[in-house]
């Protein structure tokens, strides 16, 4: 079982090293389930949320809500997401209730560097995903 508070500290340290070409901040969010909010430098509008279960570490970035999508384009967009999913490195599209997200999952055995790398890639993918899907979004 991953101790999220220990992870938070190590991850925060890693986040200041700028190894992947960017820095990030770690903010623990208290609650029934522990969650870490990751704010990537210059991309604070798109935070990444990290949580851990017995089996995996999940990193989630929010894309847009269902009602930000043009109603008539939802099917086409869903199809586009399904077909591009496999080509996206590490991350994948998902829908949670009415929120579209992009996420990555790692083994609980992952190193801090692995997690930082996952976050870096997820962050870039988030920007690209919104860009790629922008035609389907309401203006």
């Amino acid at each position, binding site marked *: 079982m991953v101790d999220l508070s220990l992870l938070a500290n190590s991850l925060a340290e890693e986040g200041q090293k700028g190894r992947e070409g960017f820095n990030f901040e770690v903010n623990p969010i208290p609650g*029934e389930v522990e*969650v870490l909010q990751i704010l990537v430098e210059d991309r604070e509008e798109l935070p990444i949320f990290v949580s851990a279960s017995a089996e995996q570490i999940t990193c989630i970035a929010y894309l847009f809500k269902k009602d930000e999508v043009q109603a008539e384009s939802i099917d086409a967009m869903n199809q586009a997401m399904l077909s591009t999913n496999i080509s996206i490195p590490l991350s994948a599209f998902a829908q949670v209730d009415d929120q579209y997200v992009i996420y990555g999952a790692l083994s609980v055995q992952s190193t801090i560097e692995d997690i930082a790398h996952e976050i870096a890639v997820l962050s870039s993918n988030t920007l690209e995903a919104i860009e790629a899907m922008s035609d389907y*979004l309401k203006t």
Partner: protein
Amino acid sequence: MSIFTKIFTAMRGGAREAGENIVDKNSVRIFEQEIKDAQTQIEKAKRDLTQVMAQEMQASRKVESLTKDVTQHEGYAEKALDKGDETLAMEIAQKIAEIDGELSIQKKAQASFSAHVDRLKGLIKKTSKSLADMERQLVMVKTTESVHKATTAITHNYASGSSKLLTAKESLDRIKKRQQDLEDRMAAGEVLADEFDGDNLESKMKEAGIVEGDTKAQDILDKLKAKKSS
């Protein structure tokens, strides 16, 4: 039905509401009960196996000793016959018949216990495999459940956070604009650096004819030319 079929069925039935477990508590409980039952079954089978194996060994020992008895008595009967004592030989033969009868019974018992042992071993193997499968599935269900819980918690936290005031497009535009500003500033900074650096300045001065070295030569030549013509 596998657990994942149950999950998809529940989802299609719209059974899931915000904050609730993705697999209803009942399914998990039933599943955990099935696992407990399998474990109990294995325990019982193992106890039975021990008992039947003991019985098999016992029957096997009896078979061994009765067989020896028969052989022994056959020896006695032969001796009696050698002595010409048919009556005694007959008595011994009857005894052999009795022992033989008992031997027959014990052999059948041994075979039956042996078959039982095989059956129990087979059952234990099969149930253990089932149990391992079920335990693995339960772990997957619980993981799915906890990931779902975490995801829902994030959604609720995020929804209540102030950063959700921007749409995705707006967020992206802001980020891109900041990047562009930074690039512009960096480009401008480079220009300024150039100007103060001397490289740019020097070439400008050269163009304007201010740099010492080059013009000196030209001056000298001009003066020489002037001197010559005068």
